[in-house]
């Protein structure tokens, strides 16, 4: 609840800072890159909640874990689409065979599999436990996939496979605070969405148990 109160004004600020700049493809940095950053942060939150559920058995953590995973999946899709637009301009094609792109696609697949797993089990406790285990498993492997594999292969992305990272030469100093701010803002938007979803979920499960 506190987080929500915090998130609403923050997301408004974030949207202002994002919308003041448009056109020119470098501005996609504020959308594409920040999308992936916040997606990753939200997956981490989801994973931590899965761990907390396994330790405590409290279904609230499970709801949180599910909703954060859903929200970051949404961010992942937006990240892929913004990335496609950007890649179309800079690399000449919307989809190139790049380890990072494959990693992103596989991440999305494995979290879709997570949702399939969730929907296939009926018992709430059991579903939560299976999903939490799979979540931790998938997250760890995804971390290897996105974090380590592109670095030992060649990638078109900056900072990988011998390419210099952004920021060392072409990120104007004025863009830096906006960039960090928009990571924070998108993450908080994600937190906000997830919090609302969690609340809906809690109300629904209360409603169900009342009716029984």
């Amino acid at each position, binding site marked *: 609840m506190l987080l929500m109160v915090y998130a609403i004004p923050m997301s408004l600020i974030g949207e202002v800072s994002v919308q003041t700049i448009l056109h020119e493809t470098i501005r996609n940095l504020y959308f594409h890159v920040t999308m992936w950053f916040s997606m990753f942060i939200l997956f981490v939150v989801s994973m931590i909640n899965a761990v907390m559920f396994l330790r405590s058995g409290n279904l609230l953590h499970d709801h949180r874990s599910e909703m954060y995973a859903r929200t970051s999946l949404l961010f992942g899709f937006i990240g892929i689409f913004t990335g496609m637009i950007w890649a179309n301009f800079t690399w000449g094609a919307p989809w190139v065979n790049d380890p990072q792109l*494959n990693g992103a696609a596989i991440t999305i697949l494995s979290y879709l599999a997570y949702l399939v797993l969730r929907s*296939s089990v009926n018992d709430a406790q059991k579903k939560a436990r*299976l999903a939490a*285990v799979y979540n*931790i498993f998938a997250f760890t492997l995804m971390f290897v996939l996105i974090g380590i*594999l592109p670095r030992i292969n060649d990638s078109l992305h900056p900072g990988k496979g011998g390419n210099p990272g952004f920021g060392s030469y072409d990120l104007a100093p004025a863009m830096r605070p906006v960039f960090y701010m928009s990571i924070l803002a998108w993450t908080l938007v994600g937190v906000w969405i997830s919090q609302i979803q969690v609340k809906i979920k809690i109300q629904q499960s209360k409603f169900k148990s009342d009716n029984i």
Partner: protein
Amino acid sequence: MLLWKEFTLEFRNRNALNGIVLYVFSTIFIAYQSFRSVSDVPVWNALLWIILLFSSVNAVNKTFQNDGSGRQYYFYLLADPVAVILSKILYNIILLTFLSLVSAAFYSLVLGNPVQQYGNFILVLLLGSIGLSSLLTMVSAISYKSGNAMGMIAVLGFPIMIPLLITIIKASKGVADGLPFSTYSKYLVTMAGLDILIIALSVILFPYLWRD
């Protein structure tokens, strides 16, 4: 002890084991009939690992189904979950190593073999089957608990198997191309790391799946 039980169980219904071996052989034979001879190294490599992938999914699939629910309950009372998962993983590692060696030999027999460095190739096969079997054991535990084991294992397993598969295919392509060891040793290190990571995760997470 538990490992011994797995072996006796396997030998008791030997038709299952024979079935898998037959499955691999007939798949290789189909590949042979459709390709006749594969001169292209990447195709040779990819075909081998696709065959091994599907046969390992089939082999590991029945890890948990073999034990009826009564026997599971019996183990639950008697044994430590860590011992259970370790024995299952160890059994599957032995099974898959055997399977992959036999099928690689047969595959090279009918489709030719571009590999020069046999020691390294067997090392890749070993590391690959250790990784695949431990990952699939865990996934089959999850999918067994979720109720419909057959469908879930593919849905859950394939996305998170891809990081492992990418490294395996890169490493074994390096071996098959006859490159010097230093060019693909990083993939072998990554594979070994992934194997350890997967087994460690299974040991940590399996106790949560186990209690029902």
